[in-house]
């Protein structure tokens, strides 16, 4: 067994979801060594960070054309690396960037990425969600090549770096990353892929925000959030009245903002804002994972939904199952009554 984890970097730091992927890789390896892969033009500042993780070896994949992410560049570099290294498993965090290149990379090996995995079971088999979180499915790979797996944010617990993990003794980052393995330190190695400028067919701009964000939901203490269950823009006033009664900020799941019923800046979830209020009231929100990742820091979650099997009830503290058009006005009335 030879397990690799591909780490993602943002703002000069290895991301939390990368460490979660590393934890999943360690679980999968079950004691076998895990190799961490870093990509970039210069990964020097990251090598020590990577070596502090639950990994036995760090591979720095460096090329000037990897300075910025491109699907072509990443696929070429990782294809060459894994052809040389022949891993049995490659674990990646299920981020937007990974979603952009990992299935292309897997296809180049004649393999299929098992995407957005929430749990590993002996075998190994891989658990992922279907129908927007309403059902779980167990997948297995029959492939003979590397098995590519991306893991959902929050599904695996990243080990605190300073303490290492149960399967790995904490190790000091090595001072000279160019050196080969020495006793008691993690080997840090280089791989230089062959990439030509013409191989990279896309040109991407620097990231930008669409509008200056004027609503900061991240510090809101009380949030009333609405989803598809509201059915029509004309029904929005009952939600606004509830938010007013509570003195809460108004928020929504993606489809509501896509429809223009609330501005994009009030969207909560992986493509919107991450919130951590005392109270998050989810009304007519089924609870697709893209939404749940944005609210899991909430102290108390209340769900109002007609479907008792909606995934929002998996994380809600309190729930009312029924017609939101009856329950929401009743709740507004109950809150006003409690105030007086």
């Amino acid at each position: 067994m030879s397990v690799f984890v591909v780490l993602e970097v943002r703002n000069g730091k290895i991301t939390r979801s990368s460490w979660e992927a590393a934890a999943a890789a360690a679980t999968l390896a079950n004691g076998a060594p895990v190799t961490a892969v870093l990509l970039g033009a210069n990964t020097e500042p990251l090598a020590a960070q990577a070596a502090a993780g639950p990994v036995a070896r760090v591979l720095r994949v460096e090329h000037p054309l990897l300075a910025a992410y491109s699907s072509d560049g990443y696929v070429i570099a990782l294809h060459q690396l894994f052809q040389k290294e022949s891993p049995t498993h490659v674990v990646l965090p299920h981020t937007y960037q990974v979603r952009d290149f990992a299935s292309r990379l897997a296809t180049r090996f004649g393999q299929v990425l098992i995407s957005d995995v929430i749990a590993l079971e002996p075998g190994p088999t891989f658990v992922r969600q279907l129908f927007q979180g309403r059902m779980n499915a167990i997948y297995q790979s029959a492939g003979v090549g590397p098995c590519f797996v991306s893991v959902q944010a929050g599904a695996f617990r990243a080990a605190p770096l300073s303490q290492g993990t149960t399967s790995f003794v904490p190790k000091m980052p090595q001072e000279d990353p160019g050196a080969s393995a020495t006793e008691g330190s993690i080997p840090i190695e280089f791989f230089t892929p062959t990439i030509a400028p013409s191989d990279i067919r896309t040109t991407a701009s620097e990231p930008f925000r669409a509008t200056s964000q004027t609503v900061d939901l991240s510090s809101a203490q009380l949030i009333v959030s609405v989803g598809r269950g509201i059915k029509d823009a004309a029904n929005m006033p009952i939600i606004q009245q509830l938010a007013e009664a509570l003195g809460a900020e108004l928020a929504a799941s993606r489809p509501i903002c896509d429809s223009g019923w609330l501005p994009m800046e009030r969207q909560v979830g992986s493509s919107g804002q991450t919130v951590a209020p005392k109270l998050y009231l989810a009304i007519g929100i089924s609870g697709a994972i893209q939404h749940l990742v944005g609210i899991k820091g909430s102290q108390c979650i209340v769900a109002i939904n007609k479907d008792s099997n909606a995934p929002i009830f998996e994380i809600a503290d309190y729930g009312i199952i029924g017609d939101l058009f009856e329950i929401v006005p009743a709740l507004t009335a109950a809150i006003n009554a409690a105030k007086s």
Partner: protein
Amino acid sequence: LKIIVAIKQVPERDAPIRIDAAGKWIDESDLQWALNESDAYALEEALLLKEKSADPASEVIVLSAGPERVGVTLREGLAKSADRAIHIVADDLASRDALGVARLLAAAIAPEKPDLILTGLQSEDLGLGQTGVILAELLGLPHASLILQVEVVADGNPQAHIRAKRELEEGWFQTIDLPLPALLTIQSGGNKLRYATLMGIKRAKMKECRILRAADLAATSAPVVTLASVSLPHKQKSTQILTGSPAEAATALVEKLKTEARVL
């Protein structure tokens, strides 16, 4: 500008999902079916591009694989003014993995030589989010995923290329340029979806819907990844469900939030 939009028919969003007797898939017997949401946005983007294109020969082709019922969804695309449809009739999609399905689609797309291929970002049923990206690799085309808006720059010129707005995480975006031909996977919400008009529905009946048999496409392959079983998820938290009339449940909830959760 020749655009192919690969679309998928999925169970309607509110449809009750039941596990079948074998525990391997859902019971499809009385399900209602609909066009996958992000695929509807992909179709919308394609139709807008065609309408904006200076090339009078521009066309939009909707493509889907699946059993006979998929024809209804393809007709819906034609009613929204796609020009023609290709239906890969296949009853064995459940036994194919993402690569197996993409191979079918690629075999149908390749002879058409489109300038642009659009797919939705991911399906609402399997949620793999991979078909488009795999297709790009099989067809040897550049791709970009999570696209919200598309523009053809220098349309009609040999230098024509795609400029697209790509969604990043946490409210960030970037612009990405790609040469043609290219493949884009479209995120929901980039445009306002159109409805089929009565005239559109009438016209759709006259439009070509070509039938291809999966068996004739020579795109079979043993699956690399297989779905072993499905189950209902375990609850992570025990939710206190408040019952009674709406007024009773609401009053009980306010009481709990004040005295138990202490968040009000």
